[in-house]
């Protein structure tokens, strides 16, 4: 009798846990769908008043002024230039540090360097923002006198530093996953270490490095605080990194923090640009998956 109860209690317990886990799993799906639904309805309402064509090709973005223009290109340009600068900083440095850590560093050096690098990823982005504004911009101004107090260059560089550990750590994982037997095959033919690294290890880890790169890009595109603080909030269609600009994300911050009435066309702009940001990030993910499949090599 007692044993039977115990079995029964255990079954109920198992069942409850199963239900809880299922709920947790499904809640993320429900939340995602919810977010997309809200984004979609508000975006559709926005495009009932502003044409998609005007939105995508307009060269001026002034929804908060009396003379409203809804051309998103200046925000795109802002995001593109800050992200581009970030990747120019993060990709080579991240890749080099990954190669150093996985191929050259002794185990002891590695065990010291890796945690230090990972601290970079733990710094709150608001700190990076002020670091860019108060330290990097003044330093850069000594080199480039024409640099504005707010600009794309400084937050771009700082964002690159922020992304560096992601790229480094993911690329390092990819390099370490390259089978030892391939390295030995290369050495056995008389390759030097750097020849082995660049002709075998890096190409074999290519798909992993690509996905590290794409993840870095999507982090850069989505990064908000650093650009909101240090890039200025001035939408400007330019690729000049020395002047104030505004990115898609920092525009969203600007509107949501401001006193724009919530049920207005101005307010709905943030859903429209949010949706485009979402689609952009989605495209990068698809591209990443496609590239990974394309270059995947099977080692047993």
């Amino acid at each position, binding site marked *: 009798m007692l044993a039977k109860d115990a079995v029964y209690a255990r079954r109920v317990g198992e069942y409850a846990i199963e239900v809880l886990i299922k709920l947790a799993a499904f809640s993320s799906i429900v939340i995602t769908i919810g977010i997309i639904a809200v984004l979609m309805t508000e975006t559709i309402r926005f495009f009932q008043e502003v044409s998609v064509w005007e939105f995508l090709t307009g060269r001026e973005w002034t929804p908060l002024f009396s003379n409203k223009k809804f051309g998103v290109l200046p925000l795109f340009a802002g995001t593109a230039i800050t992200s581009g600068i970030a990747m120019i900083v993060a990709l080579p440095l991240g890749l080099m540090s990954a190669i150093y850590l996985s191929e050259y560093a002794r185990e002891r050096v590695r065990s010291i360097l890796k945690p230090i690098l990972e601290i970079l990823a733990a710094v709150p982005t608001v700190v990076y923002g002020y670091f860019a504004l108060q330290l990097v911009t003044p330093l850069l101004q000594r080199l480039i006198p024409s640099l504005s107090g707010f600009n794309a260059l400084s937050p771009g560089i700082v964002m690159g530093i922020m992304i560096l550990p992601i790229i480094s750590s993911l690329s390092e994982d990819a390099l370490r996953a390259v089978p030892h*037997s*391939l390295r*030995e*095959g*290369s050495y*056995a*033919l*008389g390759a030097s270490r750097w020849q082995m690294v660049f002709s075998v290890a890096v190409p*074999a880890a290519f798909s992993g490095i690509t996905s590290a790169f794409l993840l870095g890009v999507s982090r850069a595109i989505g990064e908000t605080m650093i650009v909101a603080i240090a890039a200025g909030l001035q939408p400007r269609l330019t690729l000049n990194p020395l002047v104030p600009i505004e990115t898609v994300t920092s525009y969203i911050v600007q509107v949501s923090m401001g006193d724009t009435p919530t049920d207005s066309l101005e307010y709905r702009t943030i859903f429209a640009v949010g949706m485009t940001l979402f689609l952009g990030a989605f495209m990068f993910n698809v591209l990443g998956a496609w590239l990974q499949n394309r270059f995947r090599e099977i*080692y047993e």
Partner: protein
Amino acid sequence: MNDTHTMNMVFSIRGLQAGYGQKSVLHDVSIDIPPRSITAIIGPSGCGKSTFLRCLNRMNDLTPDFYVRGKVMHRDEDVYGQSVDVTHLRRRIGMVFQKPNPFPKSIFDNVAYGLRIHGMRDQKKITEKVHDSLVKAALWDEVKDHLAMPALRLSGGQQQRLCIARTIAVAPEVILFDEPCSALDPVSTRNIENLIVHLKKDYALIVVTHNLQQAHRIADYVGFFHMGRLVEFGAMKQVFEESTHQLTRDYVQGVFG
């Protein structure tokens, strides 16, 4: 054993000791490897066959805590000498591994790899060498129509012959094989064996094997290792049929393995 005899040897090894950290693996191994012949290295698992083989092309340099003492002469060059260029050495002493390890590149690029890292740029010359190496490795007829195909799509036996072609391409004088057939089916094993026998007119071949029948089929000389010592080295017939060492006789008769 006089000097001219030693000079003719591909490898002349004296008092070789090697190990990993506290663990000593090879004890006082001395051996001469003759040119244009097949030397089989046999012995029970863990006796140090791979360690021995990897001492010859300094493949163990990359293993942490590895140490080596004694003299390893390749022709008139001290393999562990101060002035040795290891990359140059490894190019002349090729190595084929237990598990086929083609690079995740095309068949052509696998064979061209060694040529390119050693600075060959002339495309015509590379194509020619790739062709010759694939022919020598008895793989050409099977792959000539899809040289651009990823090497990883070949069968295991084909992959192993590709690895041999890749090694031949850089024109080594010796090729070291570490159990080259143990990951292959019987037919591929026979193919590789025939290929190895065929190659001995141009190269000295040292083949580590667990397979005594294989050693019997292909070897001219046999070295029998036991617990890090070279128990016996001599002509194949002598080791297999006329050995005076009890250990050797027991091993080749399958008393232990």
